[in-house]
């Protein structure tokens, strides 16, 4: 398994678009954090403290890119047919897919952690007073987990659809368009939307109207859906012709 993870890591870091995506996601969140901190500093009432969760508002944009990354990690293998040399060299397909998942989610988690830490640094430098409280700690770990989970979901869709562009469209349109439309039409369906419930983990002031799940329940529900999608993708990749 270590050999397969090493192989997937070499593949991951040796493709330009993958590295660009990861770095862009981190940079985007940090840039938005700078803008948010600047805005917050202009509107901070005397005696009021700013929090880390106030400036990590760029996370949904990073998710856009992390989802794309998840699709790319498997979709490009099919697009360029490199999946064939991959599975010839290592015919244990499920193990290869697990190695891919380990590499891409680890990379995403590390970048997410670094970008949130950078947000904390930006807050400390630009905002006063600036506080990181218990809720912010939940935001930090929720963001890291959600980014990794979103990448896993993207990889699962990539394995199911095998066309990177189509899989990206499905992933992003579902999250950013379809779920919002469904919620607007039927509030009762809101609890069953994976993205809008999962993202509750990453926000400082989650929805309290009862329309969405709590951050913990929303996170669990999101990971169940992401895992199911990934498993379906893995089973299909194992059974289908490469």
């Amino acid at each position: 398994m270590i050999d397969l993870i090493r192989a997937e890591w070499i593949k991951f870091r040796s493709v330009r678009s993958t590295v660009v995506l990861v770095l862009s996601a981190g940079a985007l969140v940090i840039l938005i954090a700078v803008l948010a901190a600047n805005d917050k500093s202009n509107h901070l009432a005397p005696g009021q403290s700013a929090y880390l969760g106030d400036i990590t508002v760029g996370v949904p944009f990073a998710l856009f890119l992390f989802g794309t990354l998840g699709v790319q990690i498997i979709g490009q293998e099919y697009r360029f047919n490199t999946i064939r040399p991959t599975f010839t060299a290592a015919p244990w397909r499920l193990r290869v897919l697990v190695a891919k998942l380990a590499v891409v989610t680890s990379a995403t988690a590390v970048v997410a952690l670094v970008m949130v830490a950078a947000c904390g640094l930006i807050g400390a430098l630009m905002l006063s007073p600036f506080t990181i409280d218990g809720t912010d700690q939940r935001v930090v770990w929720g963001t890291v987990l959600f980014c990794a989970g979103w990448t896993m979901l993207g990889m699962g869709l990539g394995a199911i659809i095998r066309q990177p562009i189509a899989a990206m469209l499905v992933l992003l349109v579902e999250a950013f368009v379809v779920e919002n439309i469904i919620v607007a039409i039927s509030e009762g369906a809101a609890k069953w939307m994976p993205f809008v419930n999962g993202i509750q983990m990453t926000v400082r002031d989650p929805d309290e109207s009862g329309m969405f799940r709590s951050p913990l329940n929303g996170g669990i529900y999101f990971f169940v859906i992401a895992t199911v999608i990934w498993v379906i993708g893995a089973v299909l990749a194992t059974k289908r012709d490469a």
Partner: protein
Amino acid sequence: MIEARGLTKRYGPTTAVDDLSFRVESGRVTGFLGPNGAGKSTTMRMCLDLDRADAGAVRIDGKRLIDFPKPMRSVGALLDAGYLHPTRKAKEHLWALAASNGLPKKRVDHVLGLVGLREVANKRVGSFSLGMKQRLGLAASMLGDPQTLVFDEPANGLDPEGILWIRNFLKGLASEGRTVFVSSHLLSEMALIADDLVVIGKGALIFQGPVDAFVDSAAKKWVTVRSPQLQQIGDALHNGGAQVVAAGPGAIDVVGPTAAQIGELAASLGATLHELSPRTASLEDVFLEVTAGAQEYRGDTGAVGASAPPPPPPPPERGPAGGGAA
């Protein structure tokens, strides 16, 4: 050794490979021939467990590919030179494959030198010519120094020097006792490289055995005769039961009697001979003959600019499968 038994692959109502069984022996180059759409590439993918067979199985040295702890140390393959990520460097492509089987980095340098790509190891493969990609694919197949090699059209895109190189390369691998299974549409190349043949048409086995047996199976042997007294000789041969076919101005092809018999006949007639050449059908001739009924895709010989090939001597009344057919 590669052994396929009862391989079958269906795509909807189409049977691409139909109960195909064959053996590829060690220490020999085995050519895999068939017309376009015969199922060669599908079969090769099934040999490597990339395409799932609907029935049948392939064993390499008695094992499934998945049973080898480090598959690249036992089986190397080049199915298509284009199976590369264009923005990845050549060296990194090989590193990733080597790492998946726990092979050391020095093997990457070794195989890059083997195929003459060491100088472009740090270049992105998107800038490679087809021939360079082909060499990179060959390098990948040799990473684990495997006993069994599977190549699909390995000479594609290679220049004449490259084709000569691959010819010697494949022969060299077989002479080391390795199993070499190679498909090619370059029949003249195959005639020079292969010791054995597996010939398929419409997914089914047509022939398996040594190249010589395949060529002999068609028994297309004839004698070309040129003479100022061609009519006289031709009539005598025809009356003697030989098959005589015009072979251009001043020449006939004769099926039946040997060159010696024709020479003696000419002498008895007092005729002068300018040519008396015993001929044997080429691998290409035999291949075209035995696969004539098994071609999925054929050109329109009546198309503008196309001319029908000269008729070969009449085939004997024998089945296409040789003595080695499974």
